[in-house]
């Protein structure tokens, strides 16, 4: 019983947080943000079935997200006009998922023969094709305007109308938990293990007698199914589906989320989706350079942290599981390392913000806000300070990072010694 409780603790905590959040945040802004977050968590996990579990890097997974969204929007409109049979709105994501499953089966067959670069290129081709089709097949996609819809349809079982955003929040919450549980369970099945095997060593898998194409194909189709659920919830949530939902920007966003969060760890995409939605909602109003920062963060993660932020956390798991006291010797090196990274970031942000301001300002006004201070961008001082912080931080990083790495290695070595004895 106790073991069962410990195993399911993470899930129970997650459900508890989902239940408590809408009580704690009352403002509409945050409910909207949470809804978006839930949708993107499902989408990111679905995407990671391809990238993290199956080793297939896709630049076009938004296609399955968006196509389900369009289908659901049309279905809702059809029910509204009483030309289509009614099913409860709560079950409609399943419908959207099935639509995407269909597309996933069709397109997956052609594109999943190979993984890696080739797969990436083909996925991009399909993404571009569907994006171009949004402007051509007007009856389905309605060009740049997209499809408007209304989720308030049919009878009202138990008084659930999905009129308010909070009701949609719980719908997304339920689907989020269900989809996450299903995708997690999939990683535990023999099929899930085969996906990992095909990712790591396809040649060997073929020798054992498996058909790598078929494993990838199935993974692709299932991943499309879950992406379709996410897309359907998106359509229900914002009651509008536009051509941007199938486009490269949406596919890129989910890729960023997954990789920054950590593709190699199941919870990584969840972390990435939460973090980037938070930053996106809060920063995109403050700074115009938000996408530049996002791109830079992504590149830094690609270059230095293969398993993303979740990987950096999980890396320390053996230490806290053996002996928390080991962290004591790591404290100072970590504070110095993180501190010098922060100084670098402060300098870089300062330079970028000043540059952005000077190049995009509409008036001759040169006074702007930087770090809650009023600065004159025509003056040399703010530039000098920013560049100085950037350079000093960078030089400090070069000194402190090796120390930080050494303290980590020492702690891990001690863990190994403890486990061995």
């Amino acid at each position, binding site marked *: 019983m106790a073991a069962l409780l410990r195993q399911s603790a993470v899930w129970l905590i997650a459900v508890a947080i989902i239940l408590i959040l809408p009580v704690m945040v009352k403002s509409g802004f945050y409910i909207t943000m949470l809804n978006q977050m839930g949708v993107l968590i499902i989408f990111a996990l679905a995407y990671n079935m391809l990238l993290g579990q199956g080793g297939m890097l896709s630049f076009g997974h938004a296609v399955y997200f968006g196509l389900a969204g369009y289908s659901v929007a049309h279905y809702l409109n059809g029910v509204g006009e009483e030309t289509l049979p009614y099913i409860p709105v709560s079950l409609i994501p399943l419908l959207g998922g099935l639509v995407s499953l269909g597309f996933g089966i069709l397109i997956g067959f052609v594109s999943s023969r190979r993984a890696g*670069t080739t797969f990436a290129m083909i996925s991009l081709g399909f993404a571009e094709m569907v994006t171009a089709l949004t402007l051509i097949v007007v009856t389905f996609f309605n060009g740049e305007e997209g499809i408007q819809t209304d989720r308030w349809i049919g009878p009202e079982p138990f008084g659930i109308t999905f009129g308010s955003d909070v009701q949609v929040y719980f719908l997304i919450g339920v689907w989020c938990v269900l989809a996450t549980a299903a995708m997690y369970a999939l990683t535990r099945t023999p099929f899930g293990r085969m996906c990992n095997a095909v990712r790591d060593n396809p040649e060997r898998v073929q020798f054992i007698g498996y058909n790598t194409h078929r494993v990838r194909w199935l993974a692709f189709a299932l991943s499309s199914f879950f992406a379709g659920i996410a897309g359907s919830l998106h359509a229900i949530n914002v009651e509008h589906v536009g051509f941007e939902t199938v486009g490269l920007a949406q596919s890129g966003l989910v890729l960023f989320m997954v990789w920054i969060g950590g593709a190699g760890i199941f919870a990584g995409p969840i972390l990435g989706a939460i973090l980037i939605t938070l930053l996106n909602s809060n920063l995109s109003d403050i700074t115009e350079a938000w996408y530049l920062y996002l791109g830079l963060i992504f590149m830094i993660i690609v270059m230095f942290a293969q398993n993303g932020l979740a990987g950096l956390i999980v890396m320390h798991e053996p230490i806290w599981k053996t002996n928390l006291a080991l962290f004591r010797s790591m404290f100072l090196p970590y504070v110095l390392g993180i501190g010098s990274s922060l100084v670098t970031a402060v300098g870089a942000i300062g330079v970028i913000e000043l*540059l952005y301001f000077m190049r995009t300002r509409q008036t001759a006004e040169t006074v702007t806000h930087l770090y809650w201070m009023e600065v004159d961008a025509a003056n040399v001082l703010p530039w000098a300070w920013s560049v100085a912080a950037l350079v000093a931080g960078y030089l400090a990083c070069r000194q402190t990072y090796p120390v930080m790495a050494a303290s980590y290695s020492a702690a891990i070595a001690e863990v190994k010694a403890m486990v061995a004895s």
Partner: protein
Amino acid sequence: MEVFLFSTFNGVLYGMLLFMLASGLTLIFSLMGVLNFAHASFFMLGAYFAYQISTYTGFWSALLVAPLIVGLVGALVERYGLRPVHRFGHVAELLFTFGLAFVMEEVIQMIWGKVPVPYDVPELLNVAAFEWRGLQYSAYRLFMLGVSVAIFVALFLFIAKTRVGLMIQAALSHPQMVQSLGHDVPTIFMWTFGFGCALAGIAGVIGGNVLGTEPSMAITLGPIVFVVIVIGGLGSLWGALIAALFIGIIDNLAITFDVSIYPLFALFGVAREAEGIMSDLVNLTSGGISPVLPYLMLVLMLIFRPRGLFGTRDV
């Protein structure tokens, strides 16, 4: 007839521009296994550098200097960005270039703004070269064609006749063997990457003022270049040339003549007065579907001949 000829001519021109991008991309890809997602961004960088330089010293010096700078930037990116990522495998390299393309677009927006910059055709060439049956052909387009053909010839001579070219050819098919023979493969990688970027840069310099120099120019052209190298066969320069010309000509003819594609549907007995989605499809013209055509070709190619026109290995 003259419309057909002019349109084909424009198609060849567009195809040659595509080839300049595709040749660098396919060289880099087959040499290093890296699909450079940011390749079209270097094309864009070429156009912006050329614009900036031409505001100071005019077009001709920009034509020389801009590609060199782009090539240098490319080599630096390979040395300090891509090479450290190399040990994580091809997917990480692809992700790196994807992030790079994203960042480059943002940086260009930061420096030159979100609206197109006024990068114009040089005065000297902004005249009609010849007039035939009432249709004028601009001298600049002829110049573009001349440059691209010259680059093409130079590229083939370089690959086939020079020592470095032979080394690249050898590294294309047997990279380990070349390394075992004592050649400095990482340095070959760096300069090939820079060289490919410089080719894209030249395309940007001579194409930017015709196609329009704006932050979205990379993302519009990039995917088509990928299509070109897949259709041509990965690693094949001849394939890239044929595929680029083919796509360029088809695209231009489809837009110029804008014929209805209904006969295609009539073959399958679809009525002209179809309902729903079919009504969109039967009323389409070739100009309307031209944005989809390259990708349609890509899909058909993948189904029927996965190795591309001249490829030696399946994609």
